[in-house]
């Protein structure tokens, strides 16, 4: 028996670590992992609220998020591989041609 608030705070902490990862890391793979971390943090919040309110719909949402994440990772990593082939670099900052 644990208060839901704690889980939500845990979820927020994990999410913010993911945000920090996106903001400070240059390695494009780590940026990608941070995005996955954020998705997982959101999933945790969903699951926590699902059991708090006794409604299964939250868990269904987690299920869909997982599916979308799987699709996103498959396509995203494919794009990364393609970019790497042309630029020979895993540095996100090397991609800044689209500027005003």
């Amino acid at each position, binding site marked *: 028996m644990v208060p839901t608030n704690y889980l939500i705070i845990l979820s927020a902490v994990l999410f913010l670590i993911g*945000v920090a990862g*996106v*903001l*400070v890391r240059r390695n494009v793979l780590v940026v990608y992992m941070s995005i996955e971390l954020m998705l997982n943090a959101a999933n945790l919040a969903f699951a926590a609220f699902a059991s708090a309110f006794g409604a299964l719909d939250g868990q269904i949402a987690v299920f869909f998020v997982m599916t979308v994440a799987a699709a996103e990772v498959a396509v995203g990593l494919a794009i990364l591989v393609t970019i790497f082939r042309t630029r020979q670099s895993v540095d*996100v*900052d090397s*991609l*800044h*041609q*689209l*500027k*005003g």
Partner: protein
Amino acid sequence: MFFSEVTNQAGTFFYLAPWAVFFPVIGLLFNMAFGRKIGEKGVAMVAVAASTLSFVVAVLLWLSLRAQPEGTVIPLASWMTVVDVSWAFRVDTLAVTMMLVVGGVGSLIHLYAAGYMHYDVRYKGDPGRYGRFFVFMNLFIASMMLLVSGNSYLMLFVGWEGVGLCSYLLIGFWFEYDTKGNLSTENAKAGKKAFVANRIGDFGFMAAMFYMFTVFGTLNFDKVFAEVPAVASANPHALLIITLLLLLGVTGKSAQIPLYVWLPDAMAGPTPVSALIHAATMVTAGVYLVARSHVLYDAVPAAQHAVALVGALTALFAATIAVGQYDIKKVLAYSTISQLGFMVAAVGVGAYVAAMFHLIAHAFFKALLFLAAGSVIIALERAHHPLPEDGGAEGEHHGNDPEGFDPQDMRFMGGLRKVIPVTFWTYLIGGLALAGIPPLVAFFSKDEIIAEAKSADALVYWLLVTAAFLTAFYIGRQIFMVFFGEARSHAAEHAKESPWPMTSVLVTLAALSVAGGLLNWPRPYLAEWLGHTLGEVEAAGLNPVVAGTSATIAVVSLLLAWWLYGKRPLESAGQPDPLKRPLGWVFTGMEAKWWVDELYWAVVLNPYVALSRIAAAFDVRVIDETVNDTAWLTDFVGGKIARWQTGFVRNYALSVFVGVLLIFTYLLWR
């Protein structure tokens, strides 16, 4: 199936009414899509077939109407249900009469144009435009059918605008030339002039419709006419305003004073266009409009009087100008204005049947005259610089023609009766018909108008009689100048008769001009027929006094023309007109079209142009500057802000995060 219905006279073809519009539309779409693939012959066949099918529909409607003369309304689709306007076709004797004229004369002229345009596009050096011509012609037939068969003022207006558009497109058909074939903007200007003059008329028509809608609450013919007695007693001024505004529309479309100036310039279009649109059909739309609205006009005698005066004045005024013209088509153009004046005067005095009779007669003989004039022009062109198919070399000119030769100028003609006999005889019949020589068609129709005018209004009567005298004179002058005497140019000497599609049409129209009188005499068939729509109309019959007088006038006038132009024909193209000396400045005025164009320029157009220049300067200095400065400011600010867009994805993520943080902070703070 169709034939059994015809023979039994039991079935009706009313349901076919929309096809009078659909057939030409199908034809024009087909020619637009495949015109370049099927060649000249194919284009002509499709166009002629489309127009003829439209005519066949009109004939079937006529057969059905004989069994059921009260007519009917064929709904097609709804348009604006709120204001009770729908696409519905009105089939009654008046509409079907117009449809027969439009379809019949239109089909004949399509056939003629198939031959005429073959030469025309070659002389102008752009054979690819052949198909475009027939697309416009079919569009005209469709619009005109819509105009005459619409069941509301708004639908009539759609056709009204459609024919105006076709008129504009066809006047400017050779928009890069002038009428003599030199590169210039003259033809384009003529098209613009027609369009603008018609726009002024359309303004009147539209204002009439708007006001009519506020007063009657509908634009549907039947409903408006049913309300007229109530409105006439409650609000007589409203009817007066509506009818006078409609009259403005009529003066625009039917080329009456003061808006007639566009019609002579409209002769810039190819001759079949002049015949079909600017003589036989479109310009009669105004007459049709008044006849269709006769219930309105009958309720307002003042408006009727105005219509009659406008028509009679136009008839006389245009006839005087026609006397002083040298261009073969200009004479006919002013003649058309004058004859339209007769019709408008007739509807003005309440002689709707006489007006429609003259409209039909005019469609026959004026189309004939124009087409024969076109045949003359082409005959001279072919002799002047023969096409390869006539044995000439490309671009070759005969040096034998006088300086300043113009195939439309009657002073360069003469003696043509010997070289182009078919054209001559048909032209003669058309001319005599126009002059009102019995028993040709216009003798009956014009007499009916003059007889009705005599019993209605003395002023109108005298104006019309004088106009009739001048009519016979100018057409006599034209015939003697063109066909008699000796050839005054090389081209006139070696003119070539036109091919069969053109001459056969001339002969057909000549036959119609001869026999057309039977429509209303000795039995007043047309009066009975139109009576189903126009209400009880007492048949004027043939007034022996009036008929004798006008026939005498016509003969005297023709003799006078013979004495002046036939007895001692012009020797050379440069010789002044024999009328110039006896009439002096009056003839100069006739030659210069009474300076009306110049007057309009001085009074209306030049001030308008000056105003436009001021507006243009305002546009450039103030409005454009404002817009440009705004654009510059946007560009400047955008250039500064664009630095925010660094191209680094992580920067953008930071921006998003700052935004989220701000929103969350606000939510906490609240």
